[in-house]
């Protein structure tokens, strides 16, 4: 039932559960009372026939659709992880199909149950008729028939006789007002307030900074576990061969722009944007001294970085760049001599 309007009158009749005749609703219908204007309130579900026809709500279908959505969600999140990280672990994908099954089963159930519940809530709320308080005697076993009729109709007379005939214990009229009973507005505000507070509380853990403050691994930091000085990864030489000189140069230039140019400058002359903040002037890589160094020496510099008087002035790249990437950069640095 929608909200009651000014021109309506509400008729409420109480019945003993045994005295309530099932034919009453049928008779009221014949008297021209529309389906939406009748309401029966009872302390427990009534399953007899001849009652007001409940407005249909495809709750089953909604539950099934929500379940399917949840299923897809689970498959996407869990299965998607396996697709993003195609790493075989223990002879199976990182998130194996049975696991995707388990996870999507749970998300399916979760979505189905929660959606059913939420749909039900919305339905219950839409039922609410704020203006008419519920008669407490209903909970002691009586059944109430509530009708909303146009206030000056002849129907009213007819309906009352029908109700009396059916054995109503008490018939009352209300000139319906659409005013909301006092407590309700307050309740809404309390609920909203509680939700806001709960939401804010969720943010509290974020105030702690201990994860940021801990000694975590920084980017460009040298690996804490070092491979012995001078050692070269076994697979790098093979990989290096697969690049043509031009490809290697391009790759080297790209890596140089990312990793070196902020210090050494885009052209390698040592005029990068951060130079002003450095204690040591970066080398001009086109300088004959630098160009005179062997490829192995440059590789060594890039791998382990440089320290002047015990202080690091250039970072080590062995954690940042793979062996063949370092080779590419070195090739690029070598090429800087021919302007």
């Amino acid at each position: 039932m929608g909200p009651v309007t000014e021109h309506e009158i509400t008729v409420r009749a109480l019945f003993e559960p045994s005295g309530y005749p099932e034919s009453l609703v049928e008779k009221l219908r014949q008297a021209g009372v529309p389906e939406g204007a009748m309401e029966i309130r009872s302390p427990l579900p009534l399953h007899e026939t001849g009652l007001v026809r409940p407005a249909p709500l495809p709750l089953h279908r909604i539950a099934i659709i929500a379940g399917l959505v949840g299923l897809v969600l689970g498959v996407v999140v869990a299965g998607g992880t396996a697709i993003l990280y195609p790493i075989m672990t223990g002879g199976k994908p990182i998130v194996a199909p049975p696991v995707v099954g388990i996870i999507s089963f749970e998300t399916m159930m979760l979505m189905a149950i929660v959606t059913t519940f939420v749909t039900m809530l919305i339905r219950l709320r839409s039922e609410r008729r704020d203006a008419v308080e519920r008669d407490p005697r209903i909970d002691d076993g009586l059944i109430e028939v509530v009708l909303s009729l146009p206030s000056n109709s002849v129907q009213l007379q007819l309906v009352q006789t029908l109700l009396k005939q059916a054995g109503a214990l008490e018939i009352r009229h209300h000139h319906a007002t659409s005013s909301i009973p006092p407590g309700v507005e307050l309740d809404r505000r309390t609920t909203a307030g509680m939700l806001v507070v709960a939401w804010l509380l969720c943010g509290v853990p974020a105030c702690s900074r201990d994860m940021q403050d801990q000694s975590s691994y920084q980017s460009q930091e040298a690996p804490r576990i070092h491979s012995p000085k001078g050692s070269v990864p076994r697979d790098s030489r093979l990989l290096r061969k697969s690049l043509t000189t031009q490809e290697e140069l391009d790759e080297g230039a790209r890596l140089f722009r990312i990793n070196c140019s902020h210090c050494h400058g885009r052209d390698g002359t040592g005029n990068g944007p951060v130079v002003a903040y450095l204690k040591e002037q970066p080398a001009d890589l086109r300088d004959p001294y630098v160009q005179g160094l062997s490829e192995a020496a440059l590789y060594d510099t890039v791998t382990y970085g440089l320290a002047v008087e015990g202080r690091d002035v250039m970072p080590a790249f062995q954690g940042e760049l793979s062996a063949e990437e370092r080779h590419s950069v070195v090739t690029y640095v070598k090429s800087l001599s021919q302007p």
Partner: protein
Amino acid sequence: MSSINRDLLAPLQSATPAYFLLLIVLGAIVALGAGAWYYQVDTGIGQTNLHPPIFWGVYIASFIFWVGASHSGTFISGVLRLSKAEWRRPVTRIAELMTFISLMIATLFVFFHLGRVWRWYYLMPYPNQRELWPNFRSPLMWDAIAVFTYATASTIYLYLPLIPDFALLRERIGGWRKPLYRVLSLGWTGTQNQWQVLETALRIITPLIVMVMVSVHSIVGWDFGVSLVPAWHSTIFAPYFVVGAVHSGVGLVAIGLYVLRKIYRLERYIESEHFDKIGKLLVVTTLVLAYLYFAELLTIWYAKSPDHMWVVDALLIGPFAVPFWFMAICIYFIPLATLTNPAFRRWPLGVMLVGVFINIGMYIERVLILVPPLTYPRLPFNWGSYFPSWVEMTIIVGSLALAVLLYALAVKFVPVISIWEEKEGLVHGTRHGT
């Protein structure tokens, strides 16, 4: 019907001094537990006696125990609602409340076990600046998802049949609770439409939650089963955990029924027949559990694989023999010796005591599943031993007190017996039995 209202609302309307005394005592124990937890957080997880190779101890055992206990509500109420057993009516709410509270306690144990608890939200799958993504390979992750689903679903499942009762309370109970009831009853007036929607929702959710229940403890079983640890790596773990959970859950319901009936004089609603039915259920769960246990031990013992046998020997005749046989007496022998006797089953106090034994036994069982296999890893140089520290024990006692405290508070807030369902039973004229 007005007598049903009167009887079932009575517990909400008055409180004896003894009740407040109980609250104070429980509150004090809870405070002790909270203090121990504070101490543990402050000084570090090293306050527990957890250490390699025994990295799971009584916290995880308690987690399993409480998740298991939560199967009380779903099993009793869900399965009985599905099978339309009339005798469920006075039992369901008591059991569902237990589910709800046990799950809260179980969740707490996850947090007790975390090293830096204040970082717990990194466990959740949301994009963050540290690029952490949940590890779906780990059964613990499946577990987290399943327990979350289960907790949400069982809260809804507790709430649904409560809506009409909240509407009743809204009218009958004043004071500070009234506005709460008004919000919680969602404008329920009891129209045909509302009843219809509620019943449909219950009909849809009941079978779903029973399936979720089975999946939850299966996954807890797989936490162990999918590992390679000797005596965990077993196909039987999932069903075995589910049945064990139902076993202790039903035992808990027996305790709850007895205590509430005694205190609030609900003899007219909770009859000895209900204890009879619960007793029969317990016989079934005892037999199934014993069967699964036997099947598991037989398989291991017959194979005589040394790494497995270290664990089994330790249980049967070794250092764990005393708790093991005590457990066997509590969860197998006592229920079988008593509950198979029809006269005994109609004796509420007796059934309640069996429930107590079962739950003590099941708790020990959870510890015995965890600790012995971890104590004997495959390389003997690495063997260890474990006994909980005082911090762990205080937290465990505190959380048990918290569970009871929450229950005691809940009793003052919701009717322990579903009022409208009881009325429905009255109208159907077939209140008890079939």
